[in-house]
């Protein structure tokens, strides 16, 4: 199992236990699997039933699956896992931004795939709060990378005050 790092509060990161069971495409959940992480297709087909059973649902989106497809289900989804098939494929940054800013999604957004600490800052800024690092990063290393920059220029999903607000004496 890869380590899971979760954001805790504003600047802290801790190692977390992954409560979500990742179901393979042909696998049925056990009765004690209360938290399920499944593909978008599987969620569309069977999500309704699992939610009715009182399970918490997580949905795994590949880079080609638009977040718009989840829009109406978001209030019932506890976790959205966005996949970086390659770390230089930046589509998940837009996906996370839209989830937070356009849809007001308040659940967990997890970075999965080729997740390197060099992306920590961008991921945190775009609204990710859960990470499966592929480079053995520790929570301390993750925090150092995420907050290496003392100032940022843009407003983003993390609500960090951008330079132009700081210069106006705000934030």
């Amino acid at each position, binding site marked *: 199992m890869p380590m899971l790092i979760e954001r805790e509060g504003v600047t802290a990161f801790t190692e977390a236990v992954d409560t979500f069971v990742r179901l393979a495409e042909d696998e049925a959940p056990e009765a004690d699997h209360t938290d399920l992480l499944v593909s978008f297709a599987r969620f569309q087909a069977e999500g309704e039933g699992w939610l009715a059973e009182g399970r918490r649902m997580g949905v795994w989106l590949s880079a080609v699956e638009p977040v718009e497809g989840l829009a109406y289900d978001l209030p019932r989804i506890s976790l959205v896992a966005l996949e970086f098939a390659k770390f230089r494929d*930046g589509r998940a940054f837009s996906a996370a931004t839209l989830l937070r800013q356009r849809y007001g999604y308040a659940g967990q957004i997890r970075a999965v795939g080729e997740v390197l600490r060099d992306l920590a800052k961008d991921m945190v800024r775009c609204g990710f709060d859960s990470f499966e690092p592929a480079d053995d990063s520790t929570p301390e290393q993750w925090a150092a990378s995420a907050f290496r*920059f003392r100032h940022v220029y843009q407003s983003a999903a993390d609500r960090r005050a951008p330079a132009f607000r700081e210069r106006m004496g705000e934030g």
Partner: protein
Amino acid sequence: MYRYDAIDKSVIEDRAAEFRDQVARRLSGALTEDQFKPLRLMNGLYLQLHGYMLRVAIPYGSLSANQLRGLARIGRTHDKGYGHFTTRQNVQFNWIKLSEAPDVLDALAEVDLHAIQTSGNCIRNTTSDPCAGATAEEVDDPRVWCEAIRQWSTLHPEFGYLPRKFKIAVTASAQDRTAAKVHDIGLVLRRNREGQLGFEVMVGGGMGRTPYLGTTIRQHLPVNHLLSYLSAVLRVYNRHGRRDNIYKARIKILVAALGAEDFARQVDAEWTAMDRQAVDLPDIELARIRGAFGYVPFADLPPVSGVFEAARKADPALARFARNNVKAHKVAGYAIVNVSLKAPGEVPGYGHSEVRVTHEQNLVLPHVKLDDLAAVHAGLTAAGLAASNINLASDIIACPGLDYCALANTRAIPVAQSIARRFAEPDVAESIGELKIKISGCINACGHHHVGHIGILGVDKKGEEFFQLTLGGSGAEDASLGDVLGPAVAYDQVTPAVDALVEAYLRERRGAERFLDTYRRVGLAPFKAAVYADAH
């Protein structure tokens, strides 16, 4: 010059520290070369023929004298005494050691320079008019908007890993000195009938193997919404641009595939749904940026300088320099001086300690007193930099070519030098008039050959260097892509071919027509006949 505040300084310092950590992890093996490559590219570090090349950003082409000296120091200490000005107002050092790269970034940060996003699939250095703030043509100073874009695009969390590189140019003059129409986004600042400033937004221009001119998707974007609108364009591109094929990944391919109208509709939908207030700079910040450029203390001078007029009459070389290299300034008694780099040497200090880099690989001293012109010319002459050839046949754009670049098929610099020698006689060059020759050593088109009045593209034919000629391109406000003349010619036949093209032009030209105008009027035939006459 925009003066960095503590926040601006902190960003480039923190970036240099981050890169030092990444280099250490690469050298220790913690990062694979595959993982390190996109990271080093986003700091301008390329692996080239002779080792690493570092591309340094010169934001919108504007340098202080101190920054230029800083670049020279780096050239001496970490390179072999050279720097290469690029067509995107950057400078490249070709012999950088990976282990020294973090020190170079620190040395750059000391003079408020950096290599952030000079490569990689991200928003690159924004380019602009080298005569900004000095030409009377402009409706507003484009550097203010370039600086707003620089800050917005620097380490943007959403747009750091795009399908492909992304280049933005901003001009505020009717005469386009930025090649705006061959950029991913070209912005032309204008006033509408009500007097309000707005941008014409062109998208999907570009060169490379599939050249396109940009298409206008918005005629008059209110300036205060610039950043939110750019965000909308970038988001549509980040989400929907192709990532399966590097040659089809630029925004031009997406715009062509969707059609400009549909692309514009998607951008509008995105822009409408966006929280613009969070993204757009408030007026107070725009005013702060404008103020941070400072005030050039222009003297109150008469429009005609007796000193200069007398010197010009006495010295034909100065008169020629004034004819070709000196342009009108917005302030009476001042001039814009173009320094041709198509000759070796150093730059002396005049013009309020500010230097601009042009996309045509020259420098501009933006604010020189007419009274000082003779002294500036003398200083340039002493430094071997007084070539009076701006926009003439010997003022050639060339990429680094096979002498440096790992992508190139052919040499470019020696081809440029050979042509320049052919047209070195100043009277001959002046009688030919404006002639923009642009040379790329491969199909990636870094030398802008598609928009050369004469474009020259190096191609490899069974291990031999050949050169394809195109005619009639322009990167200016009358932008167009060149037409292929005919079969490629051998290395030693390029200069004779250009010679034949010029001879044909001189035979065909009417009145004060430029080469480009004559070509547009008469078409390919007489030029084709001139170059391939012997082949039949």
